[in-house]
C-alpha cells in the first residue's frame, strides 16, 4: 500500500471514528437515548425532517447536558493531541507534551487557589483561575529560561521541570490548608473530568482550542523545518528562536484552555501522535490534523467510559486516559526496545 493511500485511509477511518464515537457518546449515558432519535434531533437543527422525535426530556438531556459535554471532550482531546504533536517536533522528542511547559501544574495551582479563596462554586471561576495559573506558569518558565540569554531546548525543559515542581509544592501546601469540604470540589477538577460542562465552557475553551490548533496547523512547515534541528533550520533561513517561541506560546494557549475546562487529562498528547505517526508520517501538515482527530476520539470514548462504567458515580476522566495511555506506552516502549 502506498503512503498516500495509507494516509487517506487513516484520515477516512479517523473521521468516521469521530462521527461514530460522538454519536454513540451522545446517545449513551445514565439515561440512554435511542440512537435514531438522537440522529433525527441533530438533523432537525440542520433543517432535515424529524423522522424519530425524542421525548421533551430526551431533547433537554441531549441539548443541555450531553452534547456540550461530548463536543467539549472532542475539542479537549483534539487540542491536547495537536499540542503534543507540535511540541514533540519543537523539542525533537517523542515524549514531549504540554506538561513540560508547566501548563498542568500551573493550572492546578490556579484552580486550588480559587477554591481556597472560596470561589469554587462560582460559575466559571475554576476554569478561569486554572487558565490564569497555566499562563502564569508558562510565562514564568519563559522568563526564567531567558534570564541568562537565549535558552537551549535543554534549558527550557529543565526550567519547565523546576517551575512545575514549585507549582506542585504550592498546590500541596494550599490543599493541606484548605477546608476539607472545599478540597473535594478541586479534587474532581485535578483528576480531570467534564461533568456538568455547559455550552459556555465549550465556547470559552473551544475558541482557544480551535483557533490555536488552526494556527499550529498553519505553521506546519516551519514546524517541520524546526524538527531538523536548530542548526539546519537556521541554515534553511528559519528564524529559529522566534518560531520556537511562537509555537510554544500557541501550544500553551491551547493546552491551557483544554486543561482549564477539563482538568488534568494525561497521555492524550503522547498517545495520539505516537500511534498515528507510523500511519500518516511525521510531517506537520499530516500529523497535526490526524492527531486532532485521534485525540478527539480518544477523549470522547474515555469520557463515555467515565460516565457509564459505574452507575453510582462519574469516574475521573484523567484516570481513564492514564489507564489506557500508560499501558500503551509501556507496550510501545517494549516494542521499540525489542527492535533496537
Amino acid at each position, binding site marked *: 500500500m502506498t*503512503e498516500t493511500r495509507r494516509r487517506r485511509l487513516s484520515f477516512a477511518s479517523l473521521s468516521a471514528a469521530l462521527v461514530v464515537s460522538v454519536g454513540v457518546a451522545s446517545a449513551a449515558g445514565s439515561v440512554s437515548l435511542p440512537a435514531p432519535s438522537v440522529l433525527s434531533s441533530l438533523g432537525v437543527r440542520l433543517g432535515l425532517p424529524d423522522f424519530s422525535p425524542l421525548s421533551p426530556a430526551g431533547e433537554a438531556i441531549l441539548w443541555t447536558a450531553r452534547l456540550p459535554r461530548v463536543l467539549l471532550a472532542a475539542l479537549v482531546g483534539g487540542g491536547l493531541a495537536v499540542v503534543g504533536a507540535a511540541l514533540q*517536533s519543537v523539542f*525533537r522528542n517523542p515524549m514531549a507534551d504540554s506538561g513540560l511547559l508547566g501548563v498542568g501544574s500551573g493550572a492546578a495551582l490556579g484552580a486550588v487557589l480559587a477554591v481556597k479563596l472560596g470561589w469554587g462554586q462560582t460559575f466559571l471561576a475554576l476554569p478561569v483561575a486554572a487558565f490564569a495559573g497555566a499562563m502564569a506558569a508558562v510565562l514564568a518558565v519563559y522568563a526564567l529560561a531567558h534570564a541568562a540569554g537565549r535558552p537551549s531546548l535543554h534549558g527550557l525543559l529543565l526550567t519547565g521541570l523546576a517551575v512545575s515542581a514549585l507549582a506542585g509544592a504550592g498546590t500541596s501546601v494550599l490543599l493541606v490548608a484548605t477546608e476539607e469540604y472545599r478540597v473535594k470540589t478541586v479534587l474532581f477538577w485535578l483528576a480531570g473530568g467534564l461533568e456538568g460542562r455547559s455550552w459556555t465552557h465549550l465556547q470559552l475553551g473551544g475558541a482557544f482550542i480551535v483557533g490555536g490548533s488552526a494556527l499550529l496547523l*498553519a*505553521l506546519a*512547515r*516551519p514546524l*517541520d*523545518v524546526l*524538527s*531538523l*534541528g536548530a*542548526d*539546519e533550520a*537556521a*541554515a*534553511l*533561513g*528559519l*528564524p529559529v528562536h522566534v518560531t520556537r517561541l511562537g509555537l510554544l506560546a500557541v501550544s500553551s494557549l491551547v493546552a491551557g484552555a483544554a486543561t482549564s475546562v477539563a482538568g488534568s487529562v494525561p497521555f492524550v498528547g503522547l498517545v495520539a501522535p505516537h500511534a498515528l*505517526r*507510523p500511519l500518516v*508520517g*511525521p*510531517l506537520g501538515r499530516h500529523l497535526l490534523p490526524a492527531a486532532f482527530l485521534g485525540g478527539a476520539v480518544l477523549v470522547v470514548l474515555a469520557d463515555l467510559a467515565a460516565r457509564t462504567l459505574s452507575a453510582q458515580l462519574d469516574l475521573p476522566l484523567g484516570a481513564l486516559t492514564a489507564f489506557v495511555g500508560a499501558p500503551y506506552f509501556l507496550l510501545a516502549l517494549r516494542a521499540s526496545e525489542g527492535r533496537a
Partner: protein
Amino acid sequence: MKSVLEAKGAVVRRGAREVLHGVSFALREGEAVALVGPNAAGKSTLVRALAGLLRPSAGAVLLEGRPVAAWDRDARARTLALVAPDEEAPPALTVEDRVALGRYPHRGPFRPLTAEDDAAIQAALTRTGIPHLARRALETLSAGERQLAALARGLAQQPRVLLLDEPGAHLDVGHQLGLFRILDQARAGGVAVLAVVHDLQQAAAWAGRMVLLDEGRVTAEGPPDGVLTSAEAARAFGVSVRAHALPGLAHRLYSFEEPS
C-alpha cells in the same frame, strides 16, 4: 575569479572562548576547497561562521560582498547551503520529504511547492544517486545513505555556495569517491564548494585548493600538495609528512609518521 564567500579577520567566540583568532580567506566561484586541520582547530566553527550561524565578534564574513548577517535569511539560504554532520532529522521522515525541506528558502512557510520545486527535488535525488530511496524513512537507511540525503537537501536549495562539514565521515571508500564526484559535478555547474575533510589523502585528491586551519588561524593555504608537505602541516598535525609520486597515478600519495 570573483570571490563569493570571504572571511576577513574573523574572530569568532563560542561562549567565553575565542575559537577563531582573525581568520581570512576567500572562496571563489566554481572552486573546490578542502578545509583541513587537527581536531579542535576550529574547522566546524569556521564553517558555521561562514554559513552565518555564528556571528564574528570582530572582522567580517562577506557573502557576495555583503556581510552574511545583513542578508535576508531566505535569500541567504537560497545562495548558501550548509550540510553538517549531526543528523538530527526525525527518524520517520522520508528521504523525499527531507530533501523537499531544502525548498523552504524558496517557498517560505505558506506557499505551496510548485513544479519548479519538484524538479529541483528530483534533480537533487538523481545527482546524489538516491532516487530509489526517495520513499524510505531515514531510520531505515545506513549512515552513509542518510549523509547523501542530507547532501541532496543542500543541492535542492540550488545554492551558489555549498559548505560541507565532514561529508565523507560515515562513508566507505567507494561511497566517498562517489560523494566527491557529486561535489565535482556541483562545482562544474559553477557552485563554490568548501568541505571540511578529515582524510588528507582524499582531500588532496579532490580539492583544487587546500586551507589549513590550526588553533583558530589559517597557517597554510594553496595547492594541496604544497600545503600537506609544508612545515605548518607537520606542526599542526604533529607528524612528518612525505609525498610519494607513483607512476601512472595522477596525484601524489602521502605517508605520515610520528616524529622520532
